[in-house]
C-alpha cells in the first residue's frame, strides 16, 4: 500500500471547532417559530389494564394539546423487527414508565404540573422481573412462553466430547447487570407538520432512516412526506438507536394535532427511567478440557433480559450468541441462547450489543478453566487462541493473518505483567491493599451479523457543489465517534484533494441516501469502503471527461468539478454495498461467515483491592487492539479510552437499582459513572493488519473497547483476593459480603 496523505493522519475533527466554541447546536438549542413543548404521561405500574384517565381540576386543560393512542392516524407501533412496541399504551401496560398520553403547551414550565395532574386508574396484573421468573413461566407476559427469541449454535459433537474419558469439566455461572448509557445529552426531538410537506423531525439520534420508518408507520404518511434530520447529537452509545423513533413519533403526533412545531426534551430523571439500557444477562458455561489444557468442547447457555417488548433483543442476542466462544478454537461448541421478556422498559442497543455480556462470561471462565488444569491464564490461552486458518464457533475460517499469541505477549509486556504478578503474589499476604493483575483476550465482529449487511443494501454518494466543495452523502451520523471526520478523510484521500475541501452533506433523509444505521461498528469499514468507491467513481468521471489530468492540485480538482457541473448540471457518484465474494451465512443453522471481519484485542488491568473499605481501584490499564488500518490515530485512541472508561464503569460502579421494573436511582448523583479522578492511565496500543474489504484496510473499532475491561478487571480482582467474583457490577458491598464472611472482625461484630 502506498503511503497516504490524509488517511492515518490526526486531522482535526470536522465539527470540532463548533464544539470547542460552544457553537454546535444540539436539539435543545433549537427553536422554531410558534413552537410549543410536549411532555409524556407514563405508567406507574409494571403491568395491568388501564381503566380510566382523569384530568384533575386546576389546570387549564383547554390550552393543552392532548394525544392518546386513539389519535394515532397510522399504526400504533414503533417499527422494528416485530412491531410489538406500542407508540402509546392502548389498554394494557407492560412496564413502568410506558407512555400513555401526550401533552403539549406553549409554556414548558406548566408541563410538569400538568403531567402530575393526569391520573390513570389501573387494574394491576401480576408481573415478571427477572430472567429466572420469566423462565419459570408462572406468569406469561409475552407470546406463549415469555421467550422473545432463541438461537441454537452448534459445531462438532459436543455431547461426544463431554463423554470422553480423562477430561476435566469446568462449570460456571456469570451474570451482568443493566447499564445506563448516560450520554450527557438527554433524548430530544422537534417535529413540525404541514399538510403539503408532511412531517419533519429534527432529533438527537443515530439512525435517521429508522426514525423515518417509524414515523411513516405511526403517521400513515408516505415516504416522501416524512423527513428526518439529525442534529448535533451529544452522545448515544446505542441509546439513540431505537428510542428516538419513539420520542420522534410522540413529537410528530403532537405536532399533527396542534398544528404547531413541538419540542420534547427529556430531563435526566425521565431519560434514565424511561429509555433503554444494556440487557442484563446470565450465562452458564460447561467446558471440557484435556489435562494438558486443550479446549475440547463448550456447552453454553446464555440468557438475556429483554424487557417488555422484543425491540432489538433478537439481534443483541444473536451477537451475544456468536461472541460466546470468544477468541478460541473450539472443536466442539454449542450455544443455546434465549432472550426473556420481563416487565421492565425494553432493553436495547448499547455499545457492544450483547458481546460484552458474552465475553465477560467467557473471559472470566477461561481464567477459571486455566486454574482447573493448573496452567497460568496466559499459557492456557496460548494453547487455545484462534490461529489463522482455524474456524470460529460458526465455522467461519479465519483468513486474516492474525497473531493472537504474539499480541497477547506484547500486551503483557506493555503491562509488565509477569514481573508484577510475581511481586503481587509475594507482597499481598501482608497488606491491607491487595494488588492484582488480570487480562482478557477477545474479538468483536465488525458490521451487521451474518446476512445483515446484504439486507441493508447500503447506498452512499459523493458529490460536488457549485462552489467546488466535495460532499459525502450518507445517513451515517456523527455522535462523537468521528464519523464526519473519517468519512471526509477517506473521500479526500481517494479524490486526492485536501481534507479541508471535503464536508458532510446534512444528515437529512430528504438529501442523503440510506447508508444504513450508525451502529455495529460498521461505519468505518462498510460505509467508509462505499465512500471510497463512490469517491473513486467521481474522480474517474472527471478524468474520463477530460477535465482533469492524472496529477493535479486540490484547486485544479475543484475547478474541474465546477467545470463539470457547469457542463452537465451536476457531479455525483453513488456506490452500493456488495457483499465480499465467497461469503456464506445460514440464518437457520447459524453457520458460516458471521462477520466480514473481526477486530481483536488484549486488555490488561491492574487493580488494588483495599480490604478496609473493600473498594477497588484500577491502577493501570493496557489496551492493545488490532482494528485493521487506523484511519485517525487521535480519534481511534479516543474511542478506545472512552470505551475502556465505560467498561470500567460497567465492571465496578454502574448499578441500576430496580424496583419492580422501575429504575430507582434515576439521577446522576445515584447512578455512578467514573469521574476524572476514578480512572487509571489508559494506555492504548494498535496492531494494524489492513482488511482488504474495509476502507483503506479499516475494520470496526467503536464497540470493541467495551468488551474487555470487565473480565480483565474481575480477573485481576480474583488474582488480588483469591476469590472468584462472577457477577458485575461488582461493588464494594459485594466484595465486603464475601471477604468479611471469613474475617475474624466480622465474626466478632456478629456476636455483639
Amino acid at each position: 500500500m502506498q503511503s497516504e496523505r490524509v488517511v492515518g493522519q490526526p486531522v482535526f475533527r470536522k465539527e470540532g471547532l463548533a464544539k470547542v466554541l460552544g457553537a454546535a447546536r444540539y436539539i435543545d438549542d433549537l427553536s422554531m417559530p410558534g413552537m410549543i413543548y410536549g411532555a409524556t404521561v407514563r405508567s406507574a405500574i409494571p403491568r395491568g389494564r388501564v381503566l380510566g384517565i382523569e384530568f384533575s381540576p386546576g389546570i387549564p386543560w383547554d390550552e393543552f394539546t392532548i394525544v392518546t393512542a386513539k389519535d394515532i392516524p397510522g399504526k400504533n407501533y414503533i417499527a422494528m423487527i416485530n412491531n410489538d412496541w406500542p407508540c402509546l399504551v392502548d389498554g394494557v401496560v407492560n412496564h413502568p414508565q410506558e407512555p400513555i398520553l401526550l401533552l403539549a403547551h406553549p409554556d414548558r414550565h406548566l408541563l410538569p404540573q400538568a403531567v402530575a395532574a393526569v391520573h390513570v386508574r389501573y387494574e394491576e396484573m401480576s408481573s415478571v422481573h427477572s430472567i429466572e421468573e420469566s423462565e419459570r413461566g408462572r406468569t406469561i407476559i409475552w407470546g406463549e412462553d415469555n421467550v422473545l427469541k432463541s438461537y441454537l449454535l452448534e459445531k462438532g459433537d459436543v455431547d461426544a466430547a463431554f463423554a470422553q474419558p480423562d477430561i476435566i469439566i469446568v462449570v460456571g455461572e456469570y451474570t451482568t447487570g443493566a447499564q445506563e448509557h448516560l450520554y450527557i445529552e438527554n433524548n430530544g426531538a422537534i417535529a413540525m407538520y404541514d399538510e403539503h410537506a408532511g412531517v419533519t423531525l429534527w432529533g438527537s439520534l443515530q439512525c435517521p432512516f429508522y426514525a423515518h420508518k417509524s414515523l411513516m408507520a405511526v403517521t400513515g404518511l408516505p415516504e416522501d412526506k416524512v423527513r428526518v434530520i439529525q442534529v448535533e447529537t451529544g452522545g448515544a452509545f446505542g441509546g439513540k438507536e431505537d428510542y428516538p423513533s419513539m420520542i420522534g413519533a410522540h413529537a410528530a403526533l403532537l405536532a399533527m394535532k396542534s398544528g404547531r412545531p413541538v419540542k420534547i426534551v427529556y430531563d435526566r430523571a425521565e431519560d434514565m427511567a424511561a429509555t433503554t439500557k444494556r440487557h442484563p444477562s446470565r450465562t452458564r458455561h460447561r467446558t471440557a478440557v484435556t489435562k494438558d489444557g486443550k479446549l475440547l468442547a463448550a456447552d453454553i447457555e446464555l440468557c438475556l433480559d429483554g424487557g417488555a417488548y422484543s425491540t432489538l433483543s433478537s439481534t443483541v442476542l444473536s451477537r451475544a450468541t456468536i461472541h460466546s466462544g470468544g477468541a478460541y478454537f473450539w472443536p466442539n461448541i454449542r450455544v443455546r441462547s434465549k432472550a426473556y421478556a420481563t416487565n421492565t422498559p425494553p432493553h436495547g442497543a448499547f455499545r457492544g450489543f450483547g458481546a460484552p455480556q458474552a465475553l465477560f462470561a467467557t473471559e472470566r471462565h477461561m481464567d477459571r478453566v486455566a486454574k482447573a488444569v493448573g496452567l497460568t491464564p496466559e499459557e492456557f490461552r496460548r494453547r487455545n487462541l484462534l490461529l489463522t486458518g482455524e474456524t470460529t464457533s460458526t465455522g467461519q475460517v479465519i483468513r486474516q493473518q492474525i497473531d493472537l499469541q504474539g499480541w497477547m505477549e506484547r500486551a503483557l509486556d506493555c503491562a509488565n505483567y509477569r514481573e508484577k504478578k510475581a511481586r503481587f503474589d509475594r507482597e499481598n499476604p501482608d497488606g491491607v491493599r491487595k494488588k492484582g493483575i488480570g487480562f482478557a483476550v477477545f474479538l468483536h465482529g465488525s458490521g451487521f451479523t451474518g446476512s445483515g449487511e446484504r439486507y441493508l443494501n447500503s447506498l452512499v454518494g459523493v458529490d460536488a457543489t457549485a462552489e467546488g466543495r466535495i460532499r459525502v452523502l450518507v445517513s451515517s451520523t456523527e455522535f462523537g465517534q468521528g464519523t464526519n471526520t473519517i468519512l471526509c478523510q477517506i473521500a479526500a484521500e481517494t479524490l486526492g484533494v485536501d481534507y479541508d475541501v471535503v464536508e458532510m452533506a446534512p444528515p437529512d433523509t430528504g438529501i442523503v441516501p440510506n447508508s444504513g444505521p450508525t451502529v455495529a461498528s460498521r461505519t468505518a469499514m462498510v460505509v467508509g469502503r462505499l465512500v471510497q468507491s463512490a469517491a473513486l467513481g467521481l474522480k474517474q468521471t472527471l478524468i474520463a471527461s477530460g477535465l482533469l489530468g492524472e496529477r493535479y492540485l486540490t484547486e485544479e480538482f475543484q475547478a474541474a468539478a465546477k467545470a463539470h457541473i457547469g457542463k452537465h448540471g451536476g457531479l455525483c457518484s453513488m456506490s452500493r454495498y456488495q457483499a465480499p465474494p465467497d461469503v456464506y451465512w445460514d440464518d437457520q443453522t447459524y453457520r458460516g461467515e458471521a462477520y466480514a471481519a473481526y477486530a481483536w484485542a488484549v486488555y490488561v488491568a491492574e487493580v488494588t483491592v483495599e480490604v478496609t473499605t473493600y473498594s477497588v481501584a484500577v491502577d493501570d490499564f493496557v489496551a492493545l487492539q488490532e482494528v485493521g488500518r487506523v484511519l485517525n490515530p487521535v480519534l481511534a485512541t479516543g474511542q478506545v479510552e472512552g470505551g475502556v472508561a465505560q467498561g470500567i464503569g460497567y465492571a465496578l460502579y454502574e448499578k441500576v437499582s430496580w424496583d419492580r421494573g422501575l429504575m430507582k436511582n434515576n439521577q446522576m448523583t445515584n447512578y455512578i459513572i467514573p469521574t476524572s479522578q476514578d480512572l487509571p492511565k489508559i494506555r492504548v496500543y494498535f496492531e494494524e493488519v489492513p482488511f482488504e474489504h474495509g476502507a483503506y484496510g479499516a475494520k470496526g473499532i467503536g464497540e470493541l473497547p467495551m468488551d474487555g475491561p470487565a473480565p480483565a478487571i474481575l480477573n485481576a480482582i480474583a488474582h488480588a483476593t483469591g476469590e472468584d467474583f462472577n457477577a458485575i457490577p461488582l461493588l464494594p458491598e459485594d466484595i465486603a459480603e464475601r471477604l468479611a464472611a471469613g474475617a475474624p472482625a466480622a465474626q466478632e461484630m456478629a456476636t455483639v
Partner: protein
Amino acid sequence: MRSCSAECELLTPGSLEAVLCLLHDEPGLWTPIAGGTEIMVLYGAGKLTERKFVSIAVPELREITEDGGWISVGGGCSFTQIRRHVGIQKHFPMLAQCASWLGGIANQNRGTIGGNLANASPAADSPPALFAYGAELELISARGKRRIPYEEFHLGYKKTALALDELIGTVLLPKRFDDSLRYVRKVGTRNAQAISKICMAATATVKHGHVEEIRIGMGSVAPTPLRLAATERALMGTELTDAAILNVVIWEARRALASETAPIDDIRSTAAYRTLVAGNLLEEMLRTFAGAAR
C-alpha cells in the same frame, strides 16, 4: 426543571441585618438560601414545597478570622474558602481535607459550611471533622447571638437546634489540636462527586501509650452526624502500644461503636456494609494511632 420559577419569590436583602429582620418578622415563612447546592437541587427536581426564599449570601457571613485561641469561620464561607485558608490548613487540616472531598470544584465554590450543617444530612462531610475538633457554633438572629457546642446542634433526623429565625453565624474552632494525633477518611461511591457511605474524623492525645483524650465524629451511621461518645468512653485510658492489648481494645471499641450506631440500607449502600466498614475504619484509626504512639 420541574418547578415553576414564576411561582417562587427570592429576596436578596444584601445585608445580614436585613436578612435577620426578615426572618424575625415572619418566622418560618422564608427559607434561607446560601450557596443553593441543596435547595436548588430539590427545586429543580420539583421536590420543594417552599415558595419563598431569602438569599443569605452576604459579606458578613463570609469571613474567616483568627484571633487568640480560635479560628472563626463565617456560616456563609464556601468550602473553597475553607480549604484554601492557610490557618485552617495549618490548625485544622482535616477540615480542609473534608472540604476538598465535598462534591466537585464547582460545588465547593458555592456550597457553604452553614448550609452543610443546617441541611443536617447524616452523610454530610464536614460534621465529623467539626466533632473531632470540638467545634462550637454561634447562632444568630435579630434577637441576638447564642453559642452552643456543635454536639448539641443535631437533635434528630434533619432536626437541628436552629430556631425559625436563626442562622448559623459562625463556626468556632479551638486551636488546641495541633499536637493531637488525627485520622480522617471518606468512603464514597467514587473518588469525586460522591456522597459518603461513611465518613469519619478523629483526634487523640496519647501519653505513655495510653489514650488521654479522644474525639471521634462519624457520618452515615445514624439519623444525624454522630460524635461517637460511647466509643470514646471505651477508649479513654486504654493502652495502645502493646500489640496483644491493642487487639482487645479494638474489639471493645468495635463493640461500643456497634452499640451507638444504626446504619441503614439506602440507595448508596447497605447497613451491613456500613457496619463493617465503620468498624474497619475505627480499627484502622486505632492501629494508626498506636503506630504513631510507639
